C-alpha cells in the first residue's frame, strides 16, 4: 500500500479539518445554549435556564407532540405499505415499479411538495395534519421500500417453497416466515422514516395549514423572529434524540450484515 509519509499526513489533516468543520457549528450551538444573554452573542454566564424554559413552554411541547404523532403515523403507514408491497406484489411489478419509489427521492423535495399542494387544492382536500402525513408517507415509502426489498431479496426462496410444499397458505407464509426474516430491516426502516419525518421541513411547510405546527416549522418561525437560546436548547435535545435513533439504526444494519 502506498504510504508516502507527507501525503498521508496531509490526508489525515484534511480528514481532521473536515470533521472539525462538520462538528463546529453543532458544538457552538450547544455551548451557546447555556449562555445567559438572550439576544447578543456576548457570553453572560453559564445557565441552564433555557432548558427549563424549554421544559415549560407549551407551544414547543404541542408542536413536538404534533411532530411525533405525524411521524409515528407516517412510519407505521409507510413501513406497513412497503412490507405488503414487497411481500405480495408480483415479481414483475416489483422489479419494474421500484423506480417509482426512488423517483420521489430523486426529484428535489420542493417539487414533490409543490405538486402535492397543487393536487390537494385541485381535489379540495383541506390542508392540515392529514396532508402532512400523506406527504411524509410518500417520502417514507421512498426509503422503506428499498431497505425492505433489499432484505427480501436475500430471503432463501427454498424456505418459501418448502412451506408451500407443506401446504401453507400465502398468508401463513407471510406471517410465519417473511415477517420474522424481514423484521430487522422493518425496524431499521421505521427508525429511518421516523427521524426523516420528524426533521422534514419542505413537505410540512407547503402542505400545512396555519394551525398545524410541527417542530421544524416552529423552529423556522422562531428563528425568523429572532430567537432566544431556547432554540439552541431545543436543537441540542433534538440532536440527542435523533442521533440515538440513527445510532440504533446503524447498529441494526451492521448486526444484520454480520449475521449474513
Amino acid at each position: 500500500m502506498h504510504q508516502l509519509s507527507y501525503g498521508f499526513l496531509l490526508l489525515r489533516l484534511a480528514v481532521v479539518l473536515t470533521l472539525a468543520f462538520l462538528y463546529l457549528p453543532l458544538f457552538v450551538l450547544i455551548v451557546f445554549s447555556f449562555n445567559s444573554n438572550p439576544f447578543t452573542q456576548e457570553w453572560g454566564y453559564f445557565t441552564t435556564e433555557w432548558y427549563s424554559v424549554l421544559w415549560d413552554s407549551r407551544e414547543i411541547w404541542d408542536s413536538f407532540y404534533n411532530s411525533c404523532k405525524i411521524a409515528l403515523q407516517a412510519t407505521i403507514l409507510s413501513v406497513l405499505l412497503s412490507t405488503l408491497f414487497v411481500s405480495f406484489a408480483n415479481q414483475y411489478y416489483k422489479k419494474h415499479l421500484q423506480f417509482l419509489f426512488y423517483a420521489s427521492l430523486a426529484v428535489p423535495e420542493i417539487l414533490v411538495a409543490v405538486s402535492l399542494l397543487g393536487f390537494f387544492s385541485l381535489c379540495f382536500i383541506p390542508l392540515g395534519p392529514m396532508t402532512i402525513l400523506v406527504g411524509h408517507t410518500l417520502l417514507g415509502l421512498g426509503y422503506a421500500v428499498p431497505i425492505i426489498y433489499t432484505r427480501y431479496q436475500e430471503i432463501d426462496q427454498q424456505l418459501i417453497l418448502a412451506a408451500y410444499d407443506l401446504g401453507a397458505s400465502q398468508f401463513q407464509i407471510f406471517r410465519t416466515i417473511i415477517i420474522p426474516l424481514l423484521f430487522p430491516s422493518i425496524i431499521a426502516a421505521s427508525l429511518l422514516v421516523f427521524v426523516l419525518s420528524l426533521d422534514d421541513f419542505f413537505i410540512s411547510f407547503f402542505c400545512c395549514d396555519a394551525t398545524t405546527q410541527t417542530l421544524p416549522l416552529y423552529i423556522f418561525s422562531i428563528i425568523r423572529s429572532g430567537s432566544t437560546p431556547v432554540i439552541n436548547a431545543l436543537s441540542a435535545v433534538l440532536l440527542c434524540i435523533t442521533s440515538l435513533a440513527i445510532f440504533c439504526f446503524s447498529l441494526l444494519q451492521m448486526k444484520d450484515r454480520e449475521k449474513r
Partner: protein
Amino acid sequence: MIERLKSCFLKEMPFFLAAPAVLWAIILFLFPLLCLIFTSFIDQDTGLFSWYNYHHIANITIAIIIIRSLFYALLTTFFTLIIGYPIAYYVAFYARAKEYMLFFLTLPFWTNLIVLVYAWFFLLEREGLINFLLTKLGLITEPLQLAYTTGSVILVMTYCYIPFMIMPLYSVLNKFNMRLLEASCDLGATYFQTLRHVIIPVSLPGIRTGIILVFVPSFGEFIVPALMGGAKQLTVGSLISYYFVVSKNYAIGSAFTILSGLILLLTAILIYFLITLIKK
C-alpha cells in the same frame, strides 16, 4: 357461482394488499406532477389552455434567477466533491472502524436542516465565533461581514450536502479492488499517477452518483438563501415558495416550476453524460 367469486377474490388478495403502496406513489407523486404540468398551461382568468403563464415568465429576470440557482448548485457540488473525496478515500482505505466513522460523519445531518443553518449564524455573525477568534488573534481590527453573503450561502449549502457526496463515494471506494493498486505499484507508478489513472477512474460511477445527489436537491434549495443569504438573492426554490405560499399564484408558479424542473433535468443529464464520456 358464489364459490367461484369467493375464490377469485381470495386469489386477488395479494394484489389488494400490495396495491396501496403503488397507488400512493402514482396518485400522490406522478398524478400531482401531471396536475402541475396541466396547471401551468391554464390561463388563470379564462381557464382555457394557453401559453400565457410561460410567456409571463419568459423574461431576463427569471433567466437570471435560474442561472443563479444553477451556479449555486454547481459551486456546492464542486466543493462537496473536493471536501468529500478525501474523506471517503480515507474512510474506505485506511480507517479501521469504518461503520462508526461513517456514522459520525453523517450524524450532524440527522438534525434539522434549519437548526444547522441557525448554528452557522453563531459562527459567522459579526459577534460570532470566527470574528471573535480572528480579532483575539489580532489578525483583524474590524469584524468581517461573513454572514448574509453569497459566500456564506455556498458554505452552508456545502455543509448541508456533504453526506450526500460522501456516501456514494465511500460505497464505491469501499468495493475497490486492492489488487489494482498493487498492480500499478508493481508497474512502477508513483502515488499521484496511481491516483489519477487508477483510483479516480474506477470511482467515477460514485462521483457521478454523488454529483447528481448533490446537484439536484441544491438547485431547489431555498432555506439557506432565505436565512443565510438574507433573502437578497432569489433562487429557484425561493421563487417557487413565494408563488405557492405567499402569492398563491398557482398557475404561474407551476409554469415556473416546470420550466426550472426541465432545465434541471437537462443539466443533470448533461453532467451525467459528460462524466460517462470521461470514463471512456
